[in-house]
């Protein structure tokens, strides 16, 4: 179960990006997830929910797009509050 540490890394990226933009709250994080990334989507979504509660963006959503034949795991975009 490494999904929790992955969820924390995802939130960390969002927090850094938000900080660079004057701490605008992040409403959603868009993730591109390769099917060979070794990550289980359902496990990641529930881990993310737990991790988000403790983060700067407790109501932030995670939107996962699955990419076939890829090992990538990439935060592709953020949805900001304004």
């Amino acid at each position, binding site marked *: 179960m490494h999904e929790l540490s992955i969820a924390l890394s995802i939130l960390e990226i969002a927090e850094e990006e938000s900080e660079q933009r004057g701490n605008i709250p992040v409403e959603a994080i868009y993730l591109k997830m390769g099917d060979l990334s070794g990550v289980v989507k359902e496990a990641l979504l529930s881990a993310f929910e737990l991790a988000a509660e403790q983060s700067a963006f407790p109501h932030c959503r995670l939107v996962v797009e699955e990419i076939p034949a890829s090992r990538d795991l*990439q935060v592709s975009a953020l949805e900001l509050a304004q």
Partner: protein
Amino acid sequence: MSSTPRIVEVRQNVFKRNDEIARALRQRFRDSGIFVASLVSSPGAGKTAFLEKTLTLLRRRHRPAALVGDLATENDAARLARSQAPVKQITTGTLCHLEAAMVERALEDWNLSDFDVLFIENVGNLVCPASYDLGEDLRLVLLSVTEGEDKPLKYPTIFNSADVAVITKIDLAEAVEFDRVAAERNIQAVRPGMHVIETSAKTGAGFDQWLDFLTTTARLD
């Protein structure tokens, strides 16, 4: 109204931090002239027995060392220490895999130039370790004959992330009716061209071939 776009593109790799540390480690290993091989497998596939035998045989001509990851206990480090090679246990607590930062921390009080080859035994797990680069030059995935020939098909990601497949406990092959043709076919199906070595830490079978491969790949002489 603010002109800030509502959706901003980011394109950040989630494993970025781990990858950065792994890259720095790889550079350090290269600068110190040390070759690093990591081992992954399911629990009980025989990583520790394989490594103990490898360390014992390598010690005759080389200066190997090992890091070994487990959730709890120092048992594996104690076993590996019988080889007389320097060994350090990394206990991960509840974490199912090693990360580059743990390797970096474990190496803090070691002088890398004292060694020419370092082994990193990952936590027994065929899922999570696949995502984490540890800065190693070579990743071995171990598969014991008692596990079933279809392991590569069930865990393609970890086999795909590895460079060499080591089939362990080959001395038990007949007893468990291990089908080496099927195993080889399944390995090649998920990682075409993968080098496969059959070994037994108990009888020593295959260790000549493995150590030849290692010393050639690592350019140890």
